[in-house]
């Protein structure tokens, strides 16, 4: 049953991802990405990665969607003129065919050969997770701090001082 849900979520996620590419309206596209992200969070949860799932749900499908929606509204890029229609047709035409073909051939390859890839999913205990995050991955934490600093300076350069120049 759990396996069925995983497969279902994955299929829906690919569909949502494809929709994010194909939809003409930028706003719908953005929301579609958020949906794909939420479905991914569900997959992660079903696979036993609880904390990653929570992060994915809150940050990716929440925060990033907000960022994109505001970017779309700030750049006013949701117009529907002739140019966009043409562009849209060019974008949409081939994708489903490519996706179906690639998916089918990969599945064929995976099932026709005897690859022994088995998920031995055992959800990690909170203690193990804490241990991994805080004592093994110190350099990553330092990295996160620096990355957030970089992001801060980026926002200062790109937004705050833009009008001064």
């Amino acid at each position: 049953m759990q396996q069925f849900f995983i497969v279902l979520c994955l299929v829906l996620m690919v569909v949502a991802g494809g929709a994010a590419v194909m939809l003409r309206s930028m706003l719908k596209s953005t929301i579609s990405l958020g949906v794909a992200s939420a479905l991914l969070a569900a997959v992660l949860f079903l696979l036993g990665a609880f904390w990653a799932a929570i992060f994915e749900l809150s940050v990716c499908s929440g925060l990033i969607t907000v960022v994109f929606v505001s970017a779309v509204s700030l750049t006013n890029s949701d117009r529907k003129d002739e140019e966009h229609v043409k562009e849209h047709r060019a974008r949409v035409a081939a994708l489903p065919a490519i996706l179906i073909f690639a998916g089918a051939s990969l599945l064929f390859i995976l099932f026709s050969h005897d690859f022994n890839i088995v998920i031995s999913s055992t959800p990690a205990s909170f203690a193990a997770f804490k241990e991994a995050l805080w004592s093994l991955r110190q350099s990553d934490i330092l990295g996160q701090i620096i990355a957030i600093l970089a992001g801060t300076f980026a926002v200062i350069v790109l937004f705050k001082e833009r009008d001064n120049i």
Partner: protein
Amino acid sequence: MITFATISFLGLPLLAILLLNVVSKKTGGAISISVGYVVAIIQMIAAVVCMALLWMHGKDFIEFSLFWDMNATLGAAKLSVDLFSLVVLFCIGMVSLASLLTAKKTIGEKTLNYTNLLMVIMLGMNGIAVVTDLFSLYVFLEITGIASFVLIALLNDKRGLEGAFKYLVMSAIASALILGSFALIFTQTGSLVYGDVAKALADWRNAQYAPLLIVGFVMFIAGFSIKAGIAPFHGWLPDAYQSAPASVSVLLGGIVTKMAGVYALIRVLNSVFVAMPMINNTLLILGLISIVFGAVAACGQKDFKRILAYSSISQIGYIILGVASGSLLGFVGAMLHFFNHATFKTTLFVNSAAVEMQTGTTDIDQLGGLQARMPVTAVSSILAFLSMAGIPPLAGFWSKLLIIIAVWQSVSAVGGGIALAASIFTAAYFLILQRKVFFGPLEDHLTEVTEAKGTISLAAVLLSIVTVAFGVLFPVILNFLHLQGIL
């Protein structure tokens, strides 16, 4: 010792950021460049001191951790420095110093932001140099990347934003490929620490997830090729270099893309993917394509910085070639060429900054005869180019020689021959550039031009001295390495 390395390479830039942003914005802007000097110089000194310590203790590498000690369980990401990372750390300090020296005149009012981002990018690069874990490597790669996008767009001009966006798109794809390959490797190994991965991959053909690993290798090579700008993955590189503000292109051309692409690639190849002829041969071919492509494309360019960008593509090809030869000689050659490239390419970008500052353009068709007006710039650019073309006794000759010998011996004479022949093109675009910018009759609108004053000339002179001194002393250094048993 351990605290010393941690503080000087990772703590000090953080401290500088803190210092600059705690004080008032005006004071921070005023002292920022000077603080930058201090950090860069201390980093250079610390690298040399660590080298001496390594030598005194007779060790190959020194491990250290960050906040608290880690027990050595599976997946513990420690930090360590060895000779190569120290050389690279020294280069980072040197190029940052050159960039700061150039920045004083070219950045304008944005010095505080510039210095903050420089500190971040230094942290990112230092991180790349010291980590021993594939995932941490990715984290620091991204930090370096983010900081450099913002630095390119620092002046908020149209071109800078365009170059930054192109770099961002390509770099994001590269990161996705790199992290994807790490994920696939992680399936097999259960850890991403260099040593563990190397052990788990030792017999990778018979490993459980061998097909995934092969896909991972392809993604790995493609991702790092984009980051390093190897042809045909190079598209973003000339645009980013050309559009960046003068002092930022010094930084980018001198060290950033080399750290993010080449050093990380070398490090992984050398400590994780040991003795995998498939990867090495692929990189060898890509390196050769890059050498020839970059050199030929550079011959037809019309912009000072773009010529330098294409020549970077070509020189990166040499470094990759040295590593891909798989022999120790090639590795040492690549390491030395890395250092030499950092010196001469930085010199050239500093020169381009000087030319841009004094004449207002980098279009070589509008320049000419600057030799008489800007002698320091002209002479240092000749020296740097001769070094790049591999003319003895300058530094570039030795590293190129080692690389070509290594390729010749261990892989194929054809590869060595091609690499050798491409040196002619190096000379060709050097001569084109030199003739159009510095030789020939002085253009009418340039009669008022004077030599760039102060810190820019200082940077050019210092770097030229390093190039010449390193070239002349090179046999001694090589002999020393030989005696130390490193070679």
